[in-house]
């Protein structure tokens, strides 16, 4: 690792604060984990573009931004009405709202959860459930692999905790809303989410990153997911940050036998966005599906790094990532598939398709297959293209103007990923964001 610089003052200061206040908030048992993470972050430093994994992700603008942590006492009082405009319309189920990294009980509602299901803020869980949490926290998201996972762990304070006991099915989606207000100068937050689904448990989870302003801020979330045998999680991530935001996220999924994980990640916002996703298929028959859709323009950059490890035989993984790039936008897709020596009968499919709408936009795509087993079925494919001229001409010969044709075809490009959003209200929200990007005369406003 190349060490670039020491830990910036604000992180060192925050770290010290957390250490001192730990006896008040009951988080002292996290001390060793935080310390180890801090050391790891110190050793790694912020990655530079000289590192292969960070080649296209220039952190310069983030480093130049003077950030600060919001303190408990100076939290922004976000009004319910302000937030209402950002809700996923008609979405049933539990809602946890975090404002600048802190849980906001007044804006949250954990209604109609089946008995035994826990959906709460991580700060409370840290205080109340050190045993259960201790089994999972920091086990899947590894600090040595990624400086930003290390940073999140060193700054660990609040976030969400979701626990579904054995055999319980949660019908309605659990919606985690991470709101950044950015009103008091550039802020930084490090929300951490832990999801534990016990054997045979089923749930749907939405991570939603929104901003109520257009300002600069930095969100550094990490989510860890543990799926016991036969557990199922349908996961969505909606990243609709401000166009000036920095968003550097990590997701680590650990899957046991016959578990199923399906994730759809949608990015519209952010100036610099990075998603590091890692899935460990650690039991036979586990299935992992990763979908992604990035719709960006201007000078936005979204960098998706996924890594799926087939550690056991008979596992299946499927990936479909798409980007629509306009303006001067830049996209990165790096999809690593690792098949361990014993992981025979692995089936893995990876597709990355990209639509470039402007000649200044750029896509960097790279599959990365490391296959050590011999009896496997692995395929991958990547394309970067423009709008289909023939299709556009066809639409125009039917009276549809050139601009509308372009929009229809852009929407069509995204359509298959949209189709994978099973939750209708969420799909509508994503569609309306997409229509804001490419206004199409489709009516999406419908009653619940």
């Amino acid at each position, binding site marked *: 690792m190349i060490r670039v610089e020491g830990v910036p003052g604000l992180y060192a200061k925050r770290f010290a604060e957390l250490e001192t206040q730990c006896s008040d908030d009951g988080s002292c048992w996290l001390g060793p984990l935080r310390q180890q993470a801090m050391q790891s972050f110190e050793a790694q430093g912020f990655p530079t573009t000289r590192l292969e994994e960070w080649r296209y992700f220039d952190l310069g603008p983030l480093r130049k931004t003077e950030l600060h942590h919001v303190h408990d006492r100076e939290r922004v009082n976000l009004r319910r009405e302000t937030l209402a405009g950002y809700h996923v319309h008609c979405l049933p189920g539990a809602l946890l709202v975090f404002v600048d990294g802190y849980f906001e009980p007044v804006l949250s509602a954990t209604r109609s959860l089946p008995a035994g299901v826990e959906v709460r803020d991580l700060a409370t869980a840290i205080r109340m459930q050190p045993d259960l949490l201790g089994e999972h926290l920091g086990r899947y998201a590894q600090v040595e692999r990624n400086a930003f996972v290390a940073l999140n762990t060193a700054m660990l304070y609040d976030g969400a905790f979701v626990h579904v006991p054995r055999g319980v099915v949660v019908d309605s989606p659990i919606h985690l809303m991470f709101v950044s207000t950015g009103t008091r100068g550039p802020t930084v937050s490090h929300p951490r989410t832990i999801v534990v689904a016990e054997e045979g448990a089923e749930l749907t989870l939405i991570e939603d990153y929104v901003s109520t302003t257009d300002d600069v801020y930095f969100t550094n979330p990490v989510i860890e997911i543990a799926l016991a045998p036969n557990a199922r999680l349908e996961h969505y991530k909606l990243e609709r940050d401000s166009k000036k935001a920095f968003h550097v996220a990590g997701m680590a999924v650990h899957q046991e036998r016959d578990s199923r994980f399906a994730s759809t990640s949608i990015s519209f916002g952010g100036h610099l966005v990075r998603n590091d996703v890692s899935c460990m298929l650690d039991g036979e028959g586990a299935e992992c599906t990763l979908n992604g859709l990035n719709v960006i323009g201007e000078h936005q950059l979204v960098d998706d790094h996924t890594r799926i490890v087939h550690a056991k035989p008979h596992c299946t993984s499927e990936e479909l990532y798409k980007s629509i790039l306009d303006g001067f936008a830049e996209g990165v897709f790096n999809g690593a598939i690792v098949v361990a020596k014993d992981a025979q009968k692995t089936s893995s499919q990876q597709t990355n398709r990209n639509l470039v709408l402007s000649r200044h936009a750029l896509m960097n795509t790279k599959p990365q297959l490391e296959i050590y087993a011999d009896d496997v079925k692995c395929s991958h494919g990547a394309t970067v293209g423009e709008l*289909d001229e023939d299709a556009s*001409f066809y639409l*125009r010969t*039917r009276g*549809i103007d050139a601009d509308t044709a372009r929009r229809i075809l852009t929407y*069509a490009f995204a359509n298959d990923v949209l189709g994978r959003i099973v939750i209708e209200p969420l799909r509508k929200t994503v569609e309306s964001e997409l229509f804001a990007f490419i206004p199409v005369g489709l009516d999406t406003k419908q009653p619940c």
Partner: protein
Amino acid sequence: MATPLLQVHNLNVEAGGNRILTGIDLEIAPGEVHAIMGPNGSGKSTLAHVLAGREGYDITAGEVLYEGRNLLELEPEERARGGVFLAFQYPVEIPGVNNTYFLKAAVNAVRKHRGETELDAMDFLALVKEKMKLLEMDDSLLNRPVNEGFSGGEKKRNEILQMALLDPRLAVLDETDSGLDIDALRIVARGVDSMRGAERSFLVVTHYQRLLDYIVPDHVHVLANGRIVKSGGKELALELEEKGYSWIDDEVVKEAR
């Protein structure tokens, strides 16, 4: 004779550095059906595309007037709204775009231009189902992406469905009969024939007489090497079917002498 709906004068077209059309002259009066026949690669589709406004062709000489106005300066969508329709030889598949959505967008774009009210979902569905019945099309094609995975025959019917919905004044049908089985040909041809009227004209590109049994043309033209080398009445098509194109070459050669 009524003023022609379409007038093509000395049309010369190049693409990719090749001369494809070399001096086409053609006049189509309202209500007339003209058939264009000719060997593969003679320029039939090029003519159709140029009329519809496809990019990528150089018009090096000549003019095209539609309703007396310069057609070539209009965008493809303006031509469509003005009543020019092209049924594609190879209809384009558009994954991700629902056929109903597409058809409705097209119908409403054209209606809007004509100052008619746009159809809502219900009215549109009623209209499209009525037209589909005429063409004996399966309703399920409405819920699929435009032309994607359609059989050859389904694609061609979808073209004629669009024609029926858009109600054009000039319909250019580029080999609509190719790829149709005998029953489908009859259905499609009758559908086209039922749209004949004093105000609507057709330019029908085909290789076969069998289509012209249903849609009896007023004029038949033979296009070879980018030129109309012979024109005649409906009997010309029969003669071509019987003798092929080579005798024309001989005739043209003789004339040239």
